[in-house]
């Protein structure tokens, strides 16, 4: 029983980390119908910024993540406002190609600037655990998990209770109608993309504190975010959280009770099964797959 509880707890915490990586990706996809293939590169860039903050100023990653978020917010705003907005009305393949190109440029730039060396943010509490009975709860993973939940709730509150948030939702529902209501869609899109990039920066900081990173890992995080977003479903800001937690649990249980090499296969099997019975994801809304875009 202890083993089951340990595995479940670890799976949930891992799921929180996945949710943290995916929440921004899901937001952009849900609102703007853009599958941002450079999301993983933003995660890694966030990790590097936090790493530099610690190296130069000794800044704890839980403070450094705000610097990462701020820098990524600005980068995200500029990219969307002056680049992606130019082709946002085009077919989805064009945005795929563009974000793939941005991804390549970011990865190669990070390779040149930071080299391909493996890095990680060291903290005095990095590998500490809380012990509850026989169960070990890693502190940083727990904090990342709590951060994922906090961000999900904060995002919902932002979207539902602020003027900017309502503009984002309105633009996501019907871009043309939103424009007619006087909403500046270009600016709203840029804000949405910037928030997504900022969240990726925060996720990257947590990744850097928990594990190692290098530019080549960007693709892995984009894939993870994609799977979690699809599983959770678009159009619901809790989708990434739900999807992340489920993937985390499934991977953890699969690793424990089946061969460890089946972990990825089982996770994708669950994705397929969920999509068969709930094509819009676990908590997604069908509307977002067939919205009006003018």
């Amino acid at each position, binding site marked *: 029983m202890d*083993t089951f509880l*340990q*595995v479940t707890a*670890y799976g949930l915490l*891992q799921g929180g980390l996945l949710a943290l990586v995916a929440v921004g990706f899901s937001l952009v996809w849900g609102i703007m119908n853009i599958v941002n293939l450079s999301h993983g590169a933003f995660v890694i860039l966030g990790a590097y910024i936090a790493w530099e903050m610690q190296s130069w100023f000794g800044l704890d990653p839980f403070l450094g993540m705000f610097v990462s978020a701020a820098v990524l917010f600005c980068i995200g705003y500029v990219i969307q406002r002056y680049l992606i907005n130019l082709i946002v009305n085009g077919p989805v393949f064009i945005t795929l190609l563009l974000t793939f190109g941005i991804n390549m440029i970011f*990865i*190669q730039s990070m*390779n040149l600037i930071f*080299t*391909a*060396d*493996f*890095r*990680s943010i*060291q903290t005095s509490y*990095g*590998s*500490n*655990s809380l*012990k509850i009975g026989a169960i*070990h709860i*890693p502190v940083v*993973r727990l904090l990342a998990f709590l951060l994922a939940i906090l961000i999900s709730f904060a995002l919902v509150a932002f979207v539902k209770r602020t003027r900017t948030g309502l503009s984002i939702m309105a633009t996501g529902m019907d871009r043309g109608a939103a424009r007619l209501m006087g909403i500046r869609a270009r600016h709203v899109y840029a804000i949405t993309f910037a928030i997504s990039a900022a969240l990726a920066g925060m996720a990257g900081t947590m990744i850097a504190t*928990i*594990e*190692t990173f*290098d*530019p*080549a*890992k960007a693709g892995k995080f984009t894939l993870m975010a994609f799977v979690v977003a699809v599983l959770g479903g678009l159009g619901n800001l809790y989708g990434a959280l739900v999807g992340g937690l489920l993937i985390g649990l499934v*991977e*953890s249980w*699969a*690793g*424990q009770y089946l*061969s*460890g*090499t089946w*972990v*990825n296969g089982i996770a994708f099997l669950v994705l397929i099964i969920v999509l068969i019975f709930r094509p819009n994801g676990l908590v997604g809304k069908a509307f977002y797959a067939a919205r009006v875009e003018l």
Partner: protein
Amino acid sequence: MKKNSRSFVAVTAAIGLVMLGVNYAPVANAAGTLTVSIGASVPLTGSLAKEGLLTKEGYQFCQTKVNAVSLFTIGGKSIKLDITYQDDTSKPDLAAQNLSKFNDKGMKLILSSYGSANVNAQAAVVELNKQTMVDSGGADDNIFNKGYTRTFNVMSPASEYASSMVKAINDLARPKPVKFAFLSADDGFSKTVTAGGIKTAKALGFTTMDPQYFPNATSDVSAALNKIKADKPDVIIGSVHFVEGVALIKQSKELGVQPQSFAETVAPPILEFASTLGPLAENVLGSSQWTSTTKGRDKYFGTAANYATEFAAAFGHEATYHNAEATAACLAMVMSIEKAKSIDADKVQAALKSLNTMSFFGTIHFDSTGQNSSKPMSVIQIQKGKIITVWPRISAQAKMIWPYAK
């Protein structure tokens, strides 16, 4: 204007075709030097970019050194190495394709990519193209049990990686541990490493638990650790690369898994291992193809210590075993060219088959499969943040610290 444009396109196309047809085969120039064109497809981007860069540095160092000293001539002309690099982006199919591109340009002498999957793909193409390749980055025994005759590996075989650490523990650890747990990535190289380690552990009378596998390059090995936690192994041997190696140590701490010792392949000799893990890296054992105390010398690089000093001066960082094995592969190629008195790929292949020499990298002597199976591996331990050789005893820089608990 239109006509001019067409002419420009035609001329450009003609130049392009000529360029494509440029043959990079050996070129003798008026100055009395014979340029040896060697192709090297290495991963400069992608998941193996770090090791790929170290490999390239090793080749570059060899080229610089060999060209500077020019210790032999062929037909009265001194040899100049000219290594052409292509990025294979850490992908086996591209690593293999690049060799065919080299072949199309007349380049028959090849230095390998990094990573067993890449080299495995390359070895088949080398055979097809009748090129000759010296391998510095693919140690999986499975590359060499397919009957290939044109690929030669300067490294100790994969089966020695974990095996050498088991032998070191058997030789030096007091009190002797009893129970070994093997945790392994699921790629071919790591599985071969694990099989070799288990075989040696059983032969030496240790108890071994069922090996636990996890996906290659994963940063979550918690399931494997949870599976072995209750059985309390004395030693955990990780057949891992850098990412899994770091995760293994970190997550063991997180989950309260505390053996007497951790021993890992590949990761601990990488300089970032100790800096990434900090105090958690202390006393972790690792197996290494080369250290600065490896016994042997050669006329180009001297001893391992000489190599380490000169390499650090040239590149501004300590030489890792990835650097050294790349240089050793290049050295084996050069020594074989000298022995063959030719740069013909078939003659160099024949010379490689009979090469038996000492070097800064230790013994270089290929068995019938093309592996350098007589070369022993070294075992290192992270002590006070530094990589210290602890085994074999003849090369040890310090005593192995044993046991330790986190």
